[in-house]
């Protein structure tokens, strides 16, 4: 038996990512610290009761052994003792419930928010829409597939990194309006102690006020299908001025994107950009080699749409196909990205139709 144990322990300590966090994150907001205190309070109450109960139990296990000549007594009832050991825990719990109610009421108070952001859960990514500004973008997993498939070494933020994190100002009350596009997701950032289910057809709300700028990571916490473990939440908290600067930058980028849509691209430029877009948006289902998964996701190679009429090819990407897992990418990809990925799908992955499309010809 001991040999197996030493082998098991050596196996465990082999990898170098020793990170032995054993307790809840204390978090960076007043609320998360309150919750952490409640957690530790109920924890210590349980430890005290546990020590008492197991103390008596182990004492009787060692003291009243038959092998040591113990003879069992014949009493088997004492209601007063029972009443005492029932009423005391009840009182402790009632006392415990009052601070818990106070914290819960703070968590539900979403009045006077400075910034309001609509968080929409999609099958396997998050969408952030800033209600006051005209900013609206998707946040996809940025961990390369090679790391997930163990073909490359894993970076420290493995599975907790996205291409466009959510950006919020520090020391400002940010209100989240959380809903979903398809199935139930749950938006959670452990350091904020904010977790709310995103339910299709209904709206939920939560709020946070972060003092310390920084990057805070979380994950979707409600089973939502195949890539449930691969749709992280990354929130970048910037100081007030940096946030204003970021908002201005976003507006500038939006203008540039609009301008770029009218530019003319060569076929090779489109194919090059198309490959990146394909890897990020399409490979999840149609597979990196374009073969798809028979019975679940159709192949791109030799597909009647990808090698057929250009307009139908564009229409299925822009508007998706209702009733299937094929999403409408109209809001997720810019006109340039759509033109690039259409050209890539028609002239790569085993297809060579030879035609291509300019971003300006794509009307969204």
């Amino acid at each position, binding site marked *: 038996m001991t040999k*197996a144990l030493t082998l098991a322990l050596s196996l465990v300590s082999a990898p170098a990512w020793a990170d032995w966090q054993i307790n809840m994150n204390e978090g960076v907001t007043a609320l998360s610290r309150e919750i952490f205190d409640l957690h530790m309070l*109920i924890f210590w109450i349980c430890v005290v009761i546990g020590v008492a109960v197991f103390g008596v139990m182990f004492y009787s296990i060692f003291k009243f052994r038959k092998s040591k000549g113990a003879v069992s007594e014949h009493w*088997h009832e004492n209601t007063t003792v029972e009443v005492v050991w029932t009423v005391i825990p009840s009182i402790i*719990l009632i006392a415990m419930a009052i601070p818990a109610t106070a914290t819960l009421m703070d968590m539900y108070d979403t009045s006077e928010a400075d910034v309001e952001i609509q968080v929409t859960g999609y099958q396997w990514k998050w969408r952030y829409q800033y209600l006051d500004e005209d900013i609206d973008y998707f946040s996809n997993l940025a961990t390369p597939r090679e790391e997930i498939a163990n073909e490359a070494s894993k970076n420290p933020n493995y599975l907790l990194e996205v291409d466009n994190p959510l950006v919020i100002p520090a020391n400002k009350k940010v209100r989240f309006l959380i809903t979903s596009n398809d199935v139930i997701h749950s938006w959670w950032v*452990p350091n904020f102690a904010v977790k709310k289910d995103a339910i299709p*057809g209904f709206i939920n709300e939560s709020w946070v006020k972060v003092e310390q700028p920084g990057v805070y990571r979380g994950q979707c916490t409600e089973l939502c*299908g195949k890539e449930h473990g691969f749709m992280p939440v990354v929130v970048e908290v910037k100081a007030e001025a940096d946030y204003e600067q970021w908002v201005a930058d976003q507006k500038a980028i939006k203008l540039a994107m609009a301008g770029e849509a009218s530019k003319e691209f060569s076929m090779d430029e489109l194919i090059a950009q198309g490959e990146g877009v394909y890897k990020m948006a399409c490979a999840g289902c149609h597979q990196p080699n374009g073969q798809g998964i028979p019975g679940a996701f159709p192949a791109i190679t030799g597909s009647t749409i990808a090698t057929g009429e250009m307009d139908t090819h564009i229409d299925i990407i822009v508007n998706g196909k209702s009733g299937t897992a094929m999403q409408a990418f109209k809001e997720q990809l810019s006109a340039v990205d759509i033109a690039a990925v259409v050209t890539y799908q028609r002239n790569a992955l085993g297809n060579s139709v030879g035609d291509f499309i300019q971003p300006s010809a794509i009307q969204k």
Partner: protein
Amino acid sequence: MATVDVDLPHVKDEDPHHHGPAKGLGRWLYTTNHKDIGSMYLIFSLCMFMIGGTMALIIRAELFQPGLQLVEPNFFNQMTTMHGLIMVFGAVMPAFVGLANWMIPMQVGAPDMALPRMNNWSFWILPFAFLILLSSLFMPGGAPNFGWTFYAPLSTTYAPESVTFFIFGVHIMGASSIMGAINIIATILNMRAPGMTLLKMPLFVWTWLITAFLLIAVMPVLAGVVTMMLMDIHFGTSFFNAAGGGDPVLFQHVFWFFGHPEVYIMILPAFGIISEIIPTFARKRLFGYASMVYAVASIALLSFVVWAHHMFTVGMPLVGEVFFMFATMLIAVPTGVKVFNWVATMFRGSLTFETPMLFALAFVVLFTIGGFSGLMLAIAPADFQYHDTYFVVAHFHYVLVPGAIFSIMAATYYWLPKWTGHQLNETMGKIHFWLSFVGVNITFFPMHFVGLAGMPRRIPDYALQFADFNSMASVGAFIFGFSQLVFIYNVIQNVRVGEKATAQVWEGAQGLEWTLPSPAPYHTFSTPPEVK
């Protein structure tokens, strides 16, 4: 447990001209004997425990290291779903029904169950229900992959085609449980031997009587929710589809209205078993027998009013959230306090530590740890950090594996000599216990840590900071998994050739079943015993 001094006329054997069991397969197919049906339930439960356990090992093998090594995410979700379904409906509940079938007639002095033919039928539809469920693993689109709690709309609009097989499987399992419950209530209420008043019934019988009422009240609601799913998927209704005016949160309310009493269905019989075993090996009567019965009854009744503590983050109004927090904390008291009764039974007793007692003691310690993490989960604001993380996985595995599974193991070691007439090997029993004890703790204790650190549930791959505790949990899972083979070998080897068991078997054992010879004859108590 009330002392029972039995004045049994010394009948050598049951009337000799009585026919023994039929021969061959027909014996098992057409049997209406509560002992045969009990054995079939237990063997079926062991097979399901092995299948469910293998799925758990696949899950833990994938989670041994970060990165996808073994299975792709969709199959991983199928494994978690099927592991949950098979362990809950296939391993734990049939095992308890099997123990009830074997022991209740003998403990209340009844010749057999009240409705023998229905008893046979309620067993024989179970293998087919699980055949339907397991066959969905080989269908296009794969087995159900939406978790054992099958939340809509993932389980309705976004489900694989095999969801319909899952629905019919659950229907049949529900029917089997309801029929079993009717049978048990009828046997306990109508067929007790004269003199065996409710006052003197062993606690295993009492907890099963209350569990049976819970089953009858709650399994139909599960059948209702699965039927609503069926109508949503095939007949165009919109119970849970927001597009047609339905509401996915309605699903969660109806499911957990069934769900919470279901978790009490899975633990009350375990309370009964432990309350039989500890007095035997402490050689002291159970402390506060009446309080135990009253508390179990009130737990069953109050389990209907706390379901929404499974949904604290779904976005309930504040009043609802505070109400369910208060209700959950209050009903945790009568449940938790029962542990004090067992400890008081041991206090000033005269203890010996055979294998059943070891499992019972491990139950008391580890189930209480599960109970404490349950109490922490009841604090609604803190639940926003615990909900759907590995902290919850650790909680319910602590109350189910060292809880329900250890009590089933303890019951088997305790009563098997009475069933087969042969003792199980004591050293092999102790090896099985210590391996399981070590395995369970190495597997599930680290889950508390990764859960608190922020690892969500039901994910096939995780961030690097959770790597070390996950690999430890996976090693523990394989230790626990393979130690069950020691148990199986012990049972197979000793069922026929083990050391001969006396009628009394355990020195401190009391109850009608110990007045029967070991092995218990095919028909027992044909003439009801006179119980003083």
